[in-house]
């Protein structure tokens, strides 16, 4: 039973990190990018390629993973978000981010191949059951990422500017904030964090061109459960979804996993649309 719980929490950690990445981009652009899961895919493949194919040290693979995520994040904002949100209020970013996500996935399928390939062990360790690194790495780093982001939002100037933009981007701009640059920066940060998630979860997901879509969907559900904009919510939402996935298999059978996860999302949207830790936005009219 311990392994079922640990496995569920590890999955939850991956989902939580993806949800946190959604939050970073949402804070400055109000965009829920469909390419969020692909940051992890690109980062994971990049690290595996350098470490296993080119036989470079893993720390170099880790750095390259972060750089690839940062570049991908920056390009996402530039190509799929900036002009779209400037030109229209009609949520056309749904299409543009989905299109970019699909293109990147297909490109990686062609370049990397469609078969998953191994991801290196981060620390030398024999498989250690519930204490294996493939379980605790995503779990621990999800918590650290949530704590780190909270500190970033509260204590750093850039983090405070992100918060300011999330509350009112027009007011922030009126006060001299370079909102375009801040938004671009938030996507660079999101890309790095997403690629980081791909690195710490790589032993679970392998280096696989198809993993981004699944992570993006699960991360979005975790975000909706926890509440958009809340780091604690992302963490709790991820943990709930991961545990639910594992426990559903344990008690009901694997075929009900998705039904129960999506059912929970619908139920929550009906009962508490803002999520467990989200806040209701009040707009003066």
């Amino acid at each position: 039973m311990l392994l079922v719980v640990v496995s569920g929490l590890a999955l939850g950690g991956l989902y939580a990190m993806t949800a946190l990445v959604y939050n970073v981009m949402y804070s400055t652009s109000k965009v829920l990018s469909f390419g969020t899961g692909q940051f992890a895919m690109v980062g994971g493949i990049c690290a595996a390629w350098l470490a296993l194919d080119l036989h470079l040290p893993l720390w170099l693979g880790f750095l390259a993973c972060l750089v690839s995520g940062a570049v991908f994040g920056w390009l996402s904002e530039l190509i799929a978000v900036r002009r779209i949100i400037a030109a229209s209020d009609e949520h056309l970013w749904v299409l543009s981010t989905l299109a970019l996500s699909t293109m990147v996935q297909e490109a990686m399928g062609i370049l990397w191949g469609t078969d998953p390939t191994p991801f290196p062990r981060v620390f030398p360790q024999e498989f250690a059951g519930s204490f294996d690194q493939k379980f605790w790495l995503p779990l621990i780093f999800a918590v650290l990422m949530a704590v780190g982001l909270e500190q970033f939002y509260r204590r750093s100037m850039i983090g405070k500017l992100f918060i300011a933009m999330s509350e009112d981007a027009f007011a922030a701009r009126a006060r001299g904030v370079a909102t375009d640059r801040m938004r671009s920066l938030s996507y660079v940060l999101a890309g790095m964090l997403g690629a980081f998630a791909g690195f710490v979860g790589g032993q679970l997901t392998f280096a696989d061109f198809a993993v981004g879509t699944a992570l993006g969907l699960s991360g979005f559900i975790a975000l909706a459960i926890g509440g958009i904009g809340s780091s604690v919510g992302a963490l709790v939402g991820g943990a709930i979804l991961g545990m639910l996935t594992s426990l559903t298999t344990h008690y009901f059978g694997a075929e009900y996993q998705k039904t129960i996860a999506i059912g929970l999302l619908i139920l929550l949207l009906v009962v508490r649309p803002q999520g467990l830790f989200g806040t209701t936005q009040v707009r003066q009219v």
Partner: protein
Amino acid sequence: MPKTTPGLIGIGRRRLIQGIGAASLGSGLAMPAIAENKPIRMGWIAAVTGMFATNAQAQDWGFHMAVNDLNEKGGLLGRKIEIVMRDSAADPSKAVSFAKELVYNENIDVLCGPINSGEALPTIGIVSGAKKLQIIGGSVEQLIDPVKYPLGFRNLNTNGQWIKVGVKFMVEELKKTRIAIIDDNTGYGVLSRDTAIHYMEAYNLKPVYTATVDPNKPDVTDELLKAKAAGADVLTEWSNATGFVARLVNARGEQNWMVPLIGHPAILAEAVAALLTKRSYWEGCYGLGYAHQVVDAQGNLPANVRAFMDKHKDGIGPYLAAGLPSFLQGHAAVAIYAAGVEKAGDPDPLKVKAALESIPVIDTPYGPFSYTPTDHNGYRDDAIKLLVANAQLPNQGYPPVKLG
């Protein structure tokens, strides 16, 4: 000019009539000679780019080598064979367009392919409607129906045959009755699960546990633990997603629960082994394969397989990684058609159909095929064998399974 015009018209009219007569007579006499000499055109649709490219490129190579071999011997019925090839890029809509183009515009004598079920399904109505023979390379049962598609023949086993042989192996050879089925949630996985349950019913068995899982789920430990808790003494998996299969093998090894694991040929792939935490986790895994992969006591592959590989040893290198079944399946499409044409003495589709249905056994390196008027599947159950993972020999063969 005024003088010549009437003359020309007069002469032209008479000569035109004579000319038409002569031309008709001449062409009528010449036609059979032209038909006898013109090449036999084999249409070939294979997804040599896209997600099935590795397998398809090997099949394509086997197909071309088989045609080259025939042409070296003078072709079929003394006529050279021409290949009209199209790359469907694993896209069913492209496969449909190419099938139309080949049967209606390219005037092919036979269409071989598409070589996966998803692409083949939408083409069979088109090819059948054009009254062309089709050698189909997909394993889904619904592709073959001698009543609806009388000119369609299969050049590999069905998926059901694999599962039937797999269930028989678990029950009769391994003597296991507490079977857990784990499949992915694709159409293929779900269909395979239901087929496995169907064949288990013949032994009055029901699975002790079934799990239909998203193939991209990062961890399947919970599914494995559940199967273990249900008291399973053997696992069978149905998925061709190497990542999913590897997670399953890893979870089984990490739990140190080394019950036999029987499944889709993907479980034998080196791509699965590369994803295993320890290669020893591969022990006790069996994948469905073919008699042409099983070596004899001296470690030799069957003679006809060796003969083909030896003849083409200079070019075979890049295709070995895809495995023997891939290029031998491409070869089989040509071999089956050639056997039908030779027996019929004519490439006319109806005559070739009747010939294929009347040949007792068409022996190809891929395996033996026996078609009848009511069964166009052809591949024989006894040519399907279980293979042991982690036992592949340098010549791509496997030793026979030894139990106990």
